[in-house]
């Protein structure tokens, strides 16, 4: 139990340990990501001969069923898992840093719902402009971000107040998505999977623009890691160290919105990655964003790859949307976080 408490209490960390183990952890996560990426290509409702299929794909003609499954189903799906996981985890790191609130995950405070609303609005109004879906999702996400931030800073509310307000914002935005779904039933392909978050039916056409944005935003997040570090000292200290706090905060929230928006645009409202992964990574690498961002990106990719693989294998040949499994894992984690946090603050 004490180990559990220690794990769920972010303050119980020794930084000396973190510095030493961080490179090892990053290497392990990278290795895990590669292993599960290939596992995701190999396994599914039918097993395929990966080596032969890869050879065939590289030879230019992919006629056999194995090669087609690899190229059009499993490869975009595995890449989708990597990008969605990395993006949502880092979005969580950034939002939690700006709000000084380790529970402020993008799905909980309504950033994902905002992105979803933007995406569904776009799909309803301009169904042909699929490439601009991540942009529409970005605008929805940043709207939710700024809304939450304004509420948090105006009221000066406690962490829990901000979370509760975020949950309310999230339900309003979800109601918006449901309204659009009812009015334009054909706009969203597989609307149920979109609401819970799933990776089936991903195509390269939908994935590539979003993946490009995610890659760009991840690199920019790393460049602003030091700023995020200084911001975590509190607004006054950051300001007295000469930081333009408003500008940096807006930049970080925008990056988080690009990441969450792009991920939601092809994976739906995938939840809890942005809560679970940053928390576990913080436990291992500490509050240093230069380590926390890459560790969370890799960790998020691994988590979504593993969960998606399980979702395809547990009830094969049927499959669950990966969001269901993530909710089963993430929601109890969130509850534990609230309970242990209570003990600490009261």
């Amino acid at each position, binding site marked *: 139990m004490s180990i559990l408490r220690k794990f769920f209490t972010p303050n119980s960390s*020794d930084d000396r340990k973190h510095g030493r183990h961080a490179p090892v952890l990053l290497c392990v996560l990278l290795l895990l990501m590669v292993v599960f990426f290939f596992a995701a290509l190999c396994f599914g409702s039918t097993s395929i001969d990966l080596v032969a299929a890869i050879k065939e794909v590289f030879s230019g003609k992919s006629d056999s069923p194995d090669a087609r499954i690899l190229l059009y189903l499993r490869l975009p799906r595995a890449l989708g898992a990597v990008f969605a996981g990395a993006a949502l985890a880092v979005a969580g790191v950034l939002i939690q840093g700006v709000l000084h609130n380790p529970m402020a995950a993008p799905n909980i405070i309504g950033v994902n719902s905002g992105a979803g609303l933007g995406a569904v609005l776009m799909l309803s109004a301009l169904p042909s402009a699929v490439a601009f879906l991540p942009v529409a999702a970005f605008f929805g996400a940043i709207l939710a971000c700024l809304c939450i931030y304004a509420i948090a800073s105006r009221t000066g509310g406690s962490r829990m107040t901000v979370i509760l307000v975020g949950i309310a914002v999230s339900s309003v935005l979800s109601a918006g998505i449901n309204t659009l779904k009812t009015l334009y039933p054909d706009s969203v392909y597989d609307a149920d999977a979109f609401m819970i978050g799933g990776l089936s039916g991903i195509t390269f056409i939908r994935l590539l623009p979003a993946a490009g944005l995610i890659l760009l935003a991840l690199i920019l997040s790393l460049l602003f890691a030091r700023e995020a570090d200084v911001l975590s000292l509190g607004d006054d200290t950051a300001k007295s160290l*000469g930081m333009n706090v408003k500008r940096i905060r807006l930049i970080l929230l925008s990056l988080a919105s690009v990441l969450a928006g792009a991920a939601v645009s092809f994976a739906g409202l995938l939840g809890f990655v942005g809560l679970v992964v940053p928390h576990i990574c913080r436990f291992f690498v500490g509050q240093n964003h230069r380590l926390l961002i890459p560790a969370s990106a890799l960790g998020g990719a691994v988590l979504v790859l593993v969960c998606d693989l399980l979702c395809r294998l547990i009830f094969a040949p049927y499959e669950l949307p990966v969001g269901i499994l993530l909710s089963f894992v993430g929601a109890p984690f969130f509850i534990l976080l609230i309970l242990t946090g209570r003990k600490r603050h009261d």
Partner: protein
Amino acid sequence: MIEAMHLFFSYGARPVLRDFSASFAPGLLYGIVGPNGCGKTTLIRLLCGLSAPREGALSLDAMPYSVFSSKELARKVSLMPQIASLPPISGEELVGRGRYPYWGFSGRMSPSDLQAVQYALQRAEASSFAHRDVTKLSGGERQRICLAMLLAQDTPYVLLDEPTTYLDISHRFALMEQMRALREEGKCVIAVLHDLSLALRYCDRILVLEEGKVQSFDTPENILSSGVLDRVFSLSCRAVEVDGRREYLFLPKE
């Protein structure tokens, strides 16, 4: 020289500073004292550029604050961070963040940054626990880490807002000695102090604030003889000789 001219500040309709004018010169240790709610913290926030005055002007070395970029200002004026809200990072990492105004765009610590961090840790006598998580340190240790962060920022003007609050008595003396040492280097040190006897014993000049107005701004001797402390704090202040040194006693008003 920091010069404040006719500063006004208010939170909503409640005035906090009213027509505040004063100047602070290098090489002196200033103590700001006053009853709770007299505007001490607001004054410190204005002096280090955290807030802008509603009216009036602030200048640094004869140039208005507005001509400095935020990083330029942070290389001139530093503020001791509040120890209550530190993230769970090592002391060394925290002190390194004090070098933020000197980082280039890459955000890498240069050799001179690393040197400044080590020097600051040594000087604040915080080297021995610099590798530990700051949230797990005692109040006194945390305060020394924060002092090291302030030293790492290495500015000619140094501001501290009630730096002795969390410290026991011997650490208070040590911190005041550190502030004196900074003054000896020609820096201008301005501290809000709750403890009147510390202020009288260590400061070169004392500024007494009451309801946002300067009641007196003078040397400790003149402050004492003018009786302004007795009036503002409603108490009776006595100076006594102990082992040939002047000590101060504060008694309730009869």
